[in-house]
């Protein structure tokens, strides 16, 4: 089982584990990203995710190809949720299964890092004071490197 989906429904991490699990594997690595209550010192109430769907699907497929090539992991399922998410909601889940733990762990790490760099998904944070702002990780990186 290998797939990546951008969805609007709730993510059920247990179902991802079931999809990749098999007696041939001795390790399943699961990464879950959730909505955090504070970003850059500002209190967040919700995050609105949007996507360029056709490119996100294509980019996710390329990432899965690379992950399979690098780590030999073919049991790999990724779900990214879009829409309005509340605090603690699961925004992304990645499950990777392999005979051994190292490739499974390395694979989930690789996939989440590449998603953050390349997949056209954006988030607009809603703050306690009623304001809303698009998150720009490139600006945060510049600011924190000063």
């Amino acid at each position: 089982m290998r797939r990546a989906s951008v969805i609007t429904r709730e993510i059920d991490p247990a179902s991802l584990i079931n999809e990749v699990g098999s007696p041939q594997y001795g390790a399943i690595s699961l990464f879950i990203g959730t909505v955090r209550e504070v970003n850059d010192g500002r209190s967040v109430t919700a995050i609105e995710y949007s996507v360029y769907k056709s490119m996100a699907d294509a980019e996710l497929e390329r990432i899965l190809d690379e992950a399979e090539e690098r780590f030999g992991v073919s049991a790999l399922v990724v779900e990214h949720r879009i829409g309005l998410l509340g605090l603690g909601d699961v925004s992304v889940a990645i499950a990777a299964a392999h005979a051994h733990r190292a490739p499974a762990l390395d694979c989930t790490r690789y996939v989440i890092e590449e998603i953050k760099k390349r997949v056209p998904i954006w988030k607009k944070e809603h703050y306690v004071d009623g304001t809303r702002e698009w998150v720009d990780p490139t600006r945060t990186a510049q600011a924190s490197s000063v």
Partner: protein
Amino acid sequence: MSTVTVQLFASYAELLGAPTVELPLTPGTTVQDLLYRIRSLPGASALPSAPRVAVNRSFAASDQLIEPSDEIALIPPVAGG
């Protein structure tokens, strides 16, 4: 003259006030040329100096040629995860 539609998302769609813009396309137009034309649109002065551009659902180099049938999009800094 043919035209090309450029898709805009997230902060860029808000800056330009629309989800798409239509631009004239002359033969030999590159990604860089297209960006130059986009800059003259209302609201576009706030775009970064070199926004990422996708052609047919892949990130494109600035010298890539654009055809009328291409799917073009301006990609704001991504923030998935």
